[in-house]
């Protein structure tokens, strides 16, 4: 059901009420109503509201006008809300309007405008409810959010229904006051108005019920009950007015049938529609109702088994055969024509399948075949949404192009030339579609005979196509020569449009530009000029895109044409198209401001607006990213003097917000049919923007939006994302989004599954070569390390989910890459994950990670041994070190010490020394071993140095580490670490021996460090020293004063 129809009905109702109320003089007072209406008509809603505010206290306004201020303000707000693009503002306005109308209705019960206010209120509620239903269908809503909107819609419908009931009672009461046969003319008029309002309100009541049914799930009990109720009310309405108002009766039956069809009661629905179809008369109003009924009835006939083709033909045929000229261009009538053409063919198939065909059947087959062609051909000649489908139908039926009459003599008048050009143009268009369809069929068929037939048809169509193309231009030129005094500029404009169109089609761009611009300049008001200008601009845009070098010509001509078109025909498809072109041009010229100006000239409900908005948003987003990168580089290399960093950042933030706003607006109305590569990238940019803004859930929802989301497009294999780079970008952004989503998800299992799918998506964009696999592994590695860094940002279950996410990625790297750096890094990261699980007291999980890390490293060593991997000495040392760490983490301290010693005997390195010494300390702590504490302090694993022949410890211990690093300022942190641990190990050693002597030594370790460096490295290091000293002092039974005592 169209809400527009309901809205229009309500508007009529309101207008009638106002008519009854507004018989007043303009003079001797402020012409408030007239001025207010004029302001509204101009769209000056803001001023209208200002004016009403002023009228509240103005001595110029009459008291009667002041009484209606609330009503008028609500009316302005309702009108204004229709042009407000920002939804929150619109909702706010409608809220206020609703409140004002309610207030008016409640406080001015006897006012003449009260029924109009009630109707307005009902309309408002109805529209808001309808809007909520529409919004609830948005794919990015959760089911709870959808339900909330549907609940609101239901409440609004209920309120609308209550308001309409009040209005009905009000009108009923008013009608009882005026006698039916009154001779008083004024009373008679008023009664007529009230009756008409009453009629409308009665019809609207079930309309609300019917619409409210949509707020419940399909086929639910509630939905069915509401539909039944609505059907019953429609029936009662129809019956009540059958004798008095024929139109009301038919309208009631139509809507009753509509409800019954929705309920699946097709037979009953058809009974209602038959009442309408059987009605005699050819007036427009009745034909309109028949048309609406036919569109619904056809669904019933075709839903029946067997399908009732003949019934459909029986009703539709006489209506289509008597189509009036103004109806021929009505898309709904054209829809019926198309339906009829198809049904003729279906009926033919049905009749042919009958084994025992009668002579009558055979005659009908021939007739239906011919009529289907006639109807389809007529559609191909009209302009409208079904033209192309009709052309395709003809081609599918294998119906050749209707031969264009061969006329030997050239046209002698302008009109003859124009008519012939038009016929040829229709033939040209139809043959173009036929060629496309036949070529498709040719590819699809394997049967030689069919192929031969198709090829014959193709030849015929191509002949017509090629011949028409040349002849149309010749005829147009001839028509121009035959212009005489009787030729109207409108007819000439149409001929020029044909000519312009054909030039463009033939690739004669300059000719089409010249002719289109000439027409625009000389005959701006003639028919066909808009189309000519549109074609010229299209050709200029093509040149702009294709030509190399200066674009001055294209730019200046496009700008001039566009400005003229936008001024003359704002809001038309041609003006919208040229604004979109100019938006693109300005974006390419990097003139965002002007691009934005042109964008603003495109109505937001036009398809061109969505395209331009997305393109503008994408361009802004690209610029933002580029400038952000530049800023980062500057920050790294040093900010130039005089540069205002804060304002640059501010500017960037604004750019980003603006880009996101455009992208979001454009995405709202993006349809699958309009998606191309650029729009898919724009959509992906918005997901990236959300991620950058830390709006992870939004990013995921956006990527997954059914049909049009970037991820959905990729998985559906849409052409717009066929390019491998785009697919890779999409899968990477999706992977990144899912990984970040782990931080706060309530469904980690589901998200991890999505991560697996995204990993598979990324892999699918690479081939099987080792090089490609390494590249993919590098991506996973970077994500893993990034995510690992964020582990600290959350806790509990989400932290574990994130760790699992990291593990999935690392597993991918481990099993696909042969890059030593990444593999070692992976092992390190797996080790860290294991340590994380140790900290979380999840030993089993920790063990898995340690084993994986170990396996990674051992595999590398195996591969090296088998000469599959070439490892240098430093790399081998690194592997050994990592292995030692893993052994240590698994409690294999002895093995770990051996590995560390092996690494260190080849080459000593401070970081390895620290890890090795720490291993002694951990071992000591694990086993309460004073010997291992001693080794942690003094070192172990003695070796003979091959160069000096002197014996020394391969592992230094904290003492030597402190001694060695003391003289290097760069190693100061290591020095403090070593000194602290030396004192710590000494103290633990003392505790195990219960020796005050060693406790004192531990105290001295700290005191001597303080003497050298009183601040002890400051911060946490100093605090640690302080704590340790207090422990030592306590165990020595001294006051635990810590560092203060030294």
């Amino acid at each position: 059901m169209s809400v527009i129809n309901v809205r229009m009905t309500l508007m009529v109702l309101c207008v009638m009420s106002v008519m009854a109320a507004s018989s007043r003089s303009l003079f001797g007072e402020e012409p408030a109503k007239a001025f207010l209406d004029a302001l509204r008509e101009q769209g000056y809603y803001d001023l209208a509201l200002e004016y009403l505010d002023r009228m509240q206290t103005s001595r110029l306004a009459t008291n009667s006008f002041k009484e209606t201020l609330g009503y008028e303000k609500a009316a302005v707000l309702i009108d204004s809300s229709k042009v407000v693009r920002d939804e929150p503002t619109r909702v706010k306005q409608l809220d206020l309007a609703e409140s004002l109308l309610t207030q008016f209705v409640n406080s001015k019960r006897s006012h003449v405008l009260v029924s109009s206010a009630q109707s307005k209120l009902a309309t408002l509620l109805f529209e808001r409810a309808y809007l909520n239903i529409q919004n609830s269908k948005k794919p990015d809503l959760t089911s709870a959010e959808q339900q909330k909107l549907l609940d609101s819609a239901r409440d609004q419908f209920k309120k609308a229904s209550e308001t309409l009931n009040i209005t009905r009672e009000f009108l009923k009461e008013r009608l009882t006051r005026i006698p039916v046969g009154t001779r008083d003319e004024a009373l008679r008029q008023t009664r007529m108005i009230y009756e008409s309002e009453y009629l409308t309100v009665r019809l609207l009541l079930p309309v609300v019920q019917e619409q409210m049914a949509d707020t419940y799930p399909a086929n639910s009990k509630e939905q069915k009950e509401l539909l039944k109720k609505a059907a019953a009310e429609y029936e009662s309405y129809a019956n009540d007015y059958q004798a008095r108002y024929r139109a009301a009766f038919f309208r009631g039956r139509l809507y009753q049938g509509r409800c019954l069809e929705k309920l699946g009661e097709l037979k009953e629905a058809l009974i209602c529609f038959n009442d309408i179809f059987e009605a005699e008369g050819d007036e427009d109003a009745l034909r309109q109702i028949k048309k609406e009924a036919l569109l619904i009835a056809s669904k019933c006939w075709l839903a029946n088994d067997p399908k009732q083709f003949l019934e459909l033909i029986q009703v539709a045929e006489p209506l289509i055969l008597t189509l009036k000229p103004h109806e021929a261009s009505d898309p709904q009538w054209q829809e019926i024509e198309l339906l009829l053409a198809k049904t003729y063919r279906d009926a033919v198939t049905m009749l042919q399948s009958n084994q025992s065909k009668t002579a009558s059947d055979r005659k009908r087959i021939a007739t239906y075949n011919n009529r289907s062609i006639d109807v389809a051909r007529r559609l191909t000649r009209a302009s409208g949404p079904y033209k192309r489908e009709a052309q395709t139908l003809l081609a599918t039926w294998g119906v050749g192009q209707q031969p264009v009459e061969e006329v030997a003599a050239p046209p002698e008048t302008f009109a003859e030339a124009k008519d012939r050009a038009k016929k040829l143009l229709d033939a040209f268009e139809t043959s173009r579609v036929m060629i496309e369809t036949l070529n498709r069929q040719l590819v699809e068929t394997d049967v030689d005979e069919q192929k031969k037939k198709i090829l014959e048809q193709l030849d015929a169509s191509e002949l017509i196509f090629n011949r028409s193309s040349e002849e149309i231009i010749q005829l147009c030129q001839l028509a121009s020569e035959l212009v005489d005094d009787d030729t109207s500029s409108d007819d000439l404009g149409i001929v020029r449009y044909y000519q312009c169109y054909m030039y463009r089609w033939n690739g004669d761009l300059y000719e089409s530009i010249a002719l289109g611009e000439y027409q625009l300049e000389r005959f701006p008001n003639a028919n066909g000029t808009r189309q000519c200008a549109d074609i010229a601009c299209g050709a200029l845009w093509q040149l702009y895109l294709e030509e190399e070098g200066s674009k001055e010509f294209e730019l200046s001509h496009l700008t001039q044409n566009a400005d003229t078109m936008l001024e003359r025909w704002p809001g038309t498809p041609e003006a919208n198209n040229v604004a979109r072109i100019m938006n693109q041009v300005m974006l390419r010229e990097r003139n965002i401001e002007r691009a934005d100006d042109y964008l603003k000239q495109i109505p937001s409900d036009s398809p061109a607006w969505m395209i331009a908005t997305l393109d503008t948003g994408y361009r802004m987003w690209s610029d933002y990213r580029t400038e952000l990168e530049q800023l980062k580089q500057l920050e790294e290399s040093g900010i130039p003097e005089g540069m205002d960093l804060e304002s640059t950042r501010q500017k960037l933030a604004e750019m980003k917000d603006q880009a996101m706003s455009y992208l979001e607006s454009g995405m709202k109305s993006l349809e699958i049919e309009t998606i191309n590569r650029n729009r898919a990238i724009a959509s992906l940019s918005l997901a990236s923007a959300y991620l950058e803004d830390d709006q992870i859930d939004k990013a995921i929802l956006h990527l997954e939006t059914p049909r049009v989301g970037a991820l959905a497009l990729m998985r559906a294999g849409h052409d717009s994302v066929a390019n491998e780079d785009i697919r890779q970008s999409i899968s990477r952004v999706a992977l990144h989004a899912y990984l970040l989503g782990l931080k706060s998800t309530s469904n980690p299992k589901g998200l991890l599954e999505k991560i697996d799918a995204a990993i598979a998506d990324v892999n699918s964009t690479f081939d099987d070569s080792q090089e490609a696999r390494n590249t993919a592994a590098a991506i996973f590695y970077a994500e893993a390390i990034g995510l690992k860094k964020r582990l600290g940002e959350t806790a509990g279950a989400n932290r574990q989910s994130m760790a699992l996410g990291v593990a999935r990625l690392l597993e991918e790297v481990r099993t696909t890459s042969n890059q030593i750096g990444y593999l070692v890094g992976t092992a390190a990261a797996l080790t860290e994950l294991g340590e994380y699980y140790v900290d979380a007291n999840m030993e089993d999980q920790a063990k898995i990670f340690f084993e994986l890390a170990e396996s990674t490293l051992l595999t590398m060593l195996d591969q090296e041994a088998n000469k599959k991997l070439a490892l240098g000495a430093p790399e081998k040392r690194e592997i050994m070190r990592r292995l030692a760490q893993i052994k240590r983490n698994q409690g294999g301290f002895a093995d770990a010490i051996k590995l560390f010693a092996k690494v260190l005997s080849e080459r000593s390195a401070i970081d390895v020394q620290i890890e090795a010494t720490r291993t002694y300390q951990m071992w000591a702590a694990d086993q309460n071993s004073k010997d291992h504490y001693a080794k942690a302090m003094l070192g172990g694993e003695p070796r003979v140095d091959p160069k000096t022949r002197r014996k020394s410890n391969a592992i230094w211990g904290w003492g030597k580490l402190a001694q060695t690093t003391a003289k290097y300022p760069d190693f100061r942190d290591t020095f403090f670490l070593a000194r602290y641990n030396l004192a710590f190990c000494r103290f633990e050693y003392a505790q195990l021996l219960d020796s005050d002597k060693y406790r004192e030594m531990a105290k001295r370790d700290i005191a001597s460090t303080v003497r050298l460096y009183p601040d002890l490295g400051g911060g946490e290091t100093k605090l640690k020293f302080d704590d340790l000293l207090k422990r030592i002092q306590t165990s020595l039974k001294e006051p635990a004063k810590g560092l203060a005592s030294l």
Partner: protein
Amino acid sequence: MSKLLLSALLGLVVSCCLLTGDLLGQSGDRVYPKSGRAKSGNVIRMSTRNVILDDSGTESRFDVNEIKQIVFAGEPRELTRARTSINEGRFNNALQELTSIDEPPSREVIALDVEFFKSLCQAQLAIQGEQGTLNGAGATVAKLVQTLQQKENYHYYDAVRLFGNLAMASGNFAAAEREYTKIAEAPWPDVELEGRLLVAQSKLGQKKYAAAFEDFTFVESSSIKSLEAAELKLAAKIGSAACMGGLGRADEGIAALEDLLLAQRDENGPLLAKLYNAIGHCHVEANRPKDALLAFLHVDLLFQQDRMAHAEALYHISELFAQLKQDDRARDAMRKLQSQRFVNCYWASLQ
């Protein structure tokens, strides 16, 4: 303003039907006074102030301000038809008639009549933006004023007024003031009253608020009682209220204008346009742009009949929208002002 002028000019002509009937049996000149019966005879003398008619030895003297029309014996039929067209406001037709006069008129006074009416038509067409330019018409009328003064012709004051009107229409308020001052110095109280009003309006155009206010007040307080004088006084009241805006008494001015608005009992679009423009002007002076805008929009949306008043309103609307940073609307108003309707219009030339 233009309505006053037109009525004054049309006072010089009589309706076609009457005239044609009279002319059929006419042998001499015929003077039609504003009140009373027409007199026939021979115009034997005239000056810029009066005309002497001799009827068989009896001389009758007519002050110029009392003369509705003079029809001269032997004047071309085209001149007669032109007067009819002027009477009906069809200046194009009148001009066509006048330019089609081939033979030179037999008397100088008739030739001057033809010249005067030709200039009148050209000036009116230029002021209405239908044909020619204000400067072109101004040059012709300036010459004519000189000739009429030299020749002591009874059309002199009418030509002076016409020249003033052209100067006003082109925004040359100082020149208009000079010309209108001559009218204000005429020896007849009713003409003087009209002159003072015109002078005041030209001063208002120059933003000489105090001086203009004084002249408007003079007109308002005049003791002359006639329909014409009442109309002049009403125009003066609007003018003086507008001056109050410029003199820092905007609210007082608005109150006076609202009183006038509430007192209106007839649909008089041009008058209402002037009233709302004056209200808008006061709000502008009081720096209340939105109130001013609403006032001027009354003229643009409801009372567009008077071309000049409409142009003035559109000019201010465009300025005010620009001031309120509503550039699209400002441009729309400007675009309207640049349409054909406002060709040769001073306010359009300000854009």
